């Protein structure tokens, strides 16, 4: 069990430095979660999937889930509040200084650097998850030494199909999640 202050601090820190909403926060939730509250890659992957079948902003869902598994009901409430508090504070600042904020060169420069960095961090996240979720490995050297089972191949194929269905055919992610669960029961059990 992580203590409530750590959860609060973690989600506040993530909220104030993340751009691009829920998915922009994902790499930081994984990284800080591992460092601060002992989140495992499997727990993180479950969270990312459950985000897709629950209502409302992904970032709030993620905070609620991690708060709950690491700190019970109190943890879920604390993490949720900590995740939305930075947005509230930033909007108050913006409402006071709206024009000056929006046309500020420093602010524009920050976006220019952080927006593509979010993309790179997503690749870091998926590489780390692939390592532990497919191969159950701690390091990348372990991945090369592990034996490839039909379940591993099945999961990799399912991931590739998801990428194609999502990017090329724009299938709603809810249907993909449900299809993944059904296919998993038949082929990955």
């Amino acid at each position, binding site marked *: 069990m992580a203590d409530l202050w750590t959860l609060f601090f973690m989600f506040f820190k*993530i909220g104030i430095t*993340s*751009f*691009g*909403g*829920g*998915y922009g926060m994902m790499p*930081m939730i994984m*990284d800080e979660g591992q460092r601060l509250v002992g989140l495992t890659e499997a727990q993180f*992957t479950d969270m*990312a*999937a*459950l985000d*897709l079948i*629950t*209502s*409302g*902003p*992904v*970032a709030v*869902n993620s905070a609620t*889930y991690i708060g709950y598994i690491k700190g019970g009901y109190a943890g*879920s409430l604390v993490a*949720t509040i900590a995740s*939305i508090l930075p*947005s509230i504070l*930033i909007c108050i600042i*913006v409402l006071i200084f709206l024009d000056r904020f929006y046309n500020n*060169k420093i602010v*524009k*420069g*920050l*976006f*220019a*650097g*952080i*927006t*593509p960095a979010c*993309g*790179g*961090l*997503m*690749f870091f996240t*998926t590489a780390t998850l692939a390592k532990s979720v497919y191969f159950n490995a701690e390091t990348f050297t372990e991945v090369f030494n592990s034996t490839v089972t039909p379940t591993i191949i099945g999961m990799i194929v*399912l*991931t*590739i199909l*998801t990428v194609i269905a*999502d*990017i090329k055919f724009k299938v*709603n992610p*809810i249907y*993909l999640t449900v*299809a993944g*669960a*059904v296919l*998993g029961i*038949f082929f*990955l*059990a």
Partner: protein
Amino acid sequence: MQSDNIPVNLMTKKQKGFLIFKIFFSAMVFAFTGGSAATPTLIYQVVKKYKLMSEDEYMEIVALSHSLPGIIGINNSMLTGYKVCGIFGSFMAVLGTALPAFVSMLLVAVIFQELPQSRVVRGAINGIRAISIGILFDTGLRILIRNHKNIFGIAMIILAMCLPLFTKISAFYTVLLSGLIGVVYYLTKNHNNLPAPIENKEEIDG
């Protein structure tokens, strides 16, 4: 609800607050994949049905909430609520946005933790995890596709991937560092060749 029958300009502040809560709550309940899924519903409710502001005013708020740090859905509800009836409106809109997300995830989390460890459940979880990795990868891929003609953007993508992967620098410091590099780049280079924003117009329109 009786507030449906009163024109918005005759409403008291309290009635406006509850109306804005109802709008955000009902839009968010059905936005399963994330806050941006609620945008088309919110445009309909805020602009067309209740005429709380013009479409241009609302789209300005949507664009601003995408470009601010923090949670897009919460930024949007803060700014929309404030425009409709001040701080009280902001509070009610944030509550309407956060409540469905909190309650639905708490329910799902409790159920998920209590699932029996059977073969069937393990298979379903394996399937969901495989899908989830694909969706996360796509988020990065979309940013890469949007920046494929921008050398600075591609360099930042590679840098942000390699730093946490091969060094001990955390994702948090990678973000701070890339913000710093962005500021230096912006202040020294011409401004026509900037990386594409994280959400383009079509995605905002839903």
